[in-house]
């Protein structure tokens, strides 16, 4: 199991388009992927779960991956967040 703190730096936070990309990336891996925001913990392979986090710009989240490809999953997801979900500035 791996855990990593991340901060949303894209302008819109986890809005529909970003959430879709996150879920698609998470779903491409075998490991289970979880996102935590404060008390709330959701399955990162659930589009509605991720949207229900309602995480705007600057939100601090914890990303957790667990499974045979947990490292690859973590790297892919962190890269996506650091790339601001491909939104540019």
């Amino acid at each position, binding site marked *: 199991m791996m855990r990593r703190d991340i901060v949303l730096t894209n302008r819109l936070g986890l809005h529909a388009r970003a959430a879709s990309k996150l879920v698609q990336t998470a779903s491409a891996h075998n490991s289970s992927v979880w996102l935590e925001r404060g008390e709330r913990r959701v399955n990162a*392979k659930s589009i509605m779960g991720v949207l229900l986090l309602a995480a705007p710009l600057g939100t601090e989240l914890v990303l957790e991956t667990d499974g045979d490809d947990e490292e690859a999953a973590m790297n892919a997801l962190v890269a996506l967040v650091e790339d601001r979900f491909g939104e540019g500035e």
Partner: protein
Amino acid sequence: MSLVLTGIGVTSGIAIGEVHRLTPGELALPEYHLDADAIEAELERIHRAIDRSRKFLGSLLDKMGESGGETARELLESHRLILRDPLLVDATCERISSERINAEWALVKQTNQLLAEFKRLDDDYIALRREDLEQAVNLVQRELADQPATLIGAQVPHQLDHTVVVAAELGPAEMAILHQRRVAGLVTEHGGPMSHSAILARSLEIPMVVGLHHALDVLVEGESVILDGHYGAVMAAHDESLQRHYEDKRELSLRRRVDLRRYLGRPSRTVDGLTFRLFGNAELPEEFQRCRDDGVAGIGLMRTEYLFMGDQVPDEETQYRAYRAAAEVMDGRPLTIRTLDAGGDKLPPALAVTQGPNPALGLRGLRLSLSVTDLFRQQIRAILRASQFGPVQILLPMITSIDEIRQARRLIEECRQSLQAEGTTIDPDLAIGGMIETPAAALTVEQLADELDFMSIGTNDLIQYVLAIDRQDELVSYLYDPTHPGVLRLIQRIVETGRQRKLPVTVCGELAGDAHAARLLLGLGVTDFSMPPASLPAVKKSLIEASAARCRKQVTRFLDNPAHHNTGQDLLETLNSKP
């Protein structure tokens, strides 16, 4: 702290239950409970349906290729993600197994829960478009409909005894289904107290509040509410003491209703031995059934407007089926079918072009029928054909002159002859009556009576036209007084004319269904009353316990005293005080 919302109460009952926000088309979906051994098959069924829906989306995406544009692709992708989402898929399966309900129903429940959760999110953050979830789920519902369940064991249909249904508007078909499912109460955002669904709710005795703006936004799925139809109030977030208060109140009114129903079995005779007859007003199959069960003498008023409320004018066959079904349910008792009484406040969309500057005085009722004779012929043919299945009579609405009656009679005779030529024999003596509801008709009733086989007094319109008051207009509605001597004299005159000519006269307006006003009508000489089935018990009790002679004396004294100091309200009180 409780939250009280107010609209317009249309039935006096009380409902206590959980909110269910009705989604359009939802009632067409089957809802039933499963036997334990049917659950496995149902889970397979929903997995197959979701699978096929996902493949369908995939094939759309493939076909679209690069040409579709990014927005369209994203939309389809998001639908595909939704159909893979454990919050939808796993949770729906969980509902099927734990609640033992069919796939369609489980899917609706889970979808509603998710929509409610999204609704609670900050408005500024539009996380998920409601339509995305709904569209994705609709795909699955379509697949489920294509592959109906092969049922193992019994289906127990879902009952709504503890549910208050909230909707934008409700149509007659939806009302019928909700009634069958024994819904506890109804709330709609639109509609007035005289709207179609309100009239139905009254007659089916479903507590209902209409015109509750933003009800769908404010009331949360699954929250417990109290609906007080008398005050038009819906209370959410209430405390236990309020709930107990209303439970007691509901219990009391139910008991009172059961007590009143005992009168239905008693002979229709006043204490001084005058025989009266009670008829029902009905339009839906449930209402006819109800009227028959309650022992009415017949149907005094079958309105036909609801058949015309869709986007299309119903053809002869559709109308024939509705009239025939009513005649069959009534099983030999007279059935009075009123021809289309559109116009005024109730104009079918299909006929909206006929709306003039003042609808109440415009092309409405029989005038409208005589101006679109093809439509009228269609309706008459349907009624005549249905008359082979029971004693049917035709009632013409909104007449003002003899000429209109003659025109209508001519058209009816033409239809009878053309049916005869087609080999369908219709009784040439089929009764044709007229609604006396305009001052002109009431003041010339002696002449009109020569052309009619029976008469019916529509008190709602008569009062409105005589007093020149639109009751929907809240600035003058306080002047709407059914006991105005001008109104009473006209009713008396119509009834007296009927008595002299031996023509039956029925009162079928709202006044006839009012237990207090029933004695006023009795005092005016009325013996035939027609009303929604829900009013039958209370009116019957009021009449059985009345003395007709005493009522007549009191009403006559009221009318004969020109400088009367008594108001109509005093008269009603005297009439209804114990002898």
